[in-house]
């Protein structure tokens, strides 16, 4: 079950990074970068 959820987190993180390279508004890019932090920490099972 844990790995299913981690898979979803990974998918979301990839989607966010993908979109960051398409987004032209730097503030929205910043928002996305902030959202990435908890996703990465959970993906690595750190927090």
């Amino acid at each position, binding site marked *: *079950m*844990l790995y299913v*959820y981690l898979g979803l987190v990974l998918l979301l993180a990839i989607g966010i*990074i993908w979109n*960051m*390279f398409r*987004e*032209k*508004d*730097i*503030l*929205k*890019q*910043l928002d*996305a*970068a*902030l959202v*990435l*932090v908890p996703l*990465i*920490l*959970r993906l*690595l*099972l*750190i*927090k």
Partner: protein
Amino acid sequence: MQIHTKHYRISAAILIALAAVVCVLLSTQFLSMREEEPIYPGEGVTQTRMLSDWYPAIRGTAGDTEVYVLQGAADGDSMLVLGGTHPNEPSGLLSAVMLIENAKMETGTLYIIPRTNNSAFTCTDPQEGTPMRFHISTPEGERWFRFGSRATNPIHQWPDPEIYVHASSGQRLSGSETRNINRSYPGRTDGNFTESISYAITQLIQQEGVDITIDLHEASPEYPTINAVVAHEDAMELASWALLGMQMEGMDIALEPSPKNLHGLTHRELGDYTDTLAVLMETANASQGRLRGKTDERLIVEGKDKFYVRAAQYGRLYVPFDENGHPLSERVARHTTGILQFAQAYNDLGLGTIQITGMPTFVEMQTDLGPYLIPKAKN
């Protein structure tokens, strides 16, 4: 507001790199919670075992934890002390450490688990702003201990369900309680991570025939069950007798029966599912309370808080609370004295023999824990 840039790909790369740096900085902090505080077994400890000895399926998991065994020269009965059921209630861990480092058994066997929910020591509760560590000064330097979370670290058990259904009773609680080990007893083999740990503890009690189990807790000063013993109905006589002993030591303490319809707790399920006499003790911890002010190490160790003083003046608390607060030394003195009084009551009532020696007196501990927590060289 929008700020468009022509170099949006470069800014994206820079921001991702910054996010990575933030992740590294945060990781070092979060991972520091996985380092265990040193415990220096005293000469009374005859064996250090792992909880997985009683339920091998948890071996190597974050829930496996040390069980310190103090076996007396003479055969007798046995007692299990659970510290760190809730690692945000530090007097449980500290009382267990005091016993491991000082107690000796004349008769009978004492089992001590200082970190009952070992996983919950590896994180703090979100949005509480609690420090990760606190320090106790001893004549030979400072010791550090972790201030953890009430529940299992979500990285060891995730995600939470919407509703937590307690397996053997069907009781329904909020989803986050699924990681609260003191709602998971007696545990089960095909359940979640937390249930496997409580199952291991139930196995220890059954396989060793543990006669008394004492679960150490703390509560917010505004919580009604505080400075109290909660006892399973089978342990009521023992608890009443022990309570008299505690009161003779000068402790103001109350006795409450374990509610029959509140499931998953040690004093209910261990009493129902095993032959142990199951009790739980609570002290007053301002650092987990809702009314507390600045939350730092001092609040944990000294237990002083001006907002609680005011709440007491308004008559809103269930314990007296003045400028002196409720320091950790007092809370540990209460727990350890309670444990000694349970052993004494057990002997006095003719139920068997459990003789614990080597512990400082209530007043000595209340004054300063430092002299009894001197770090020793690890061998």
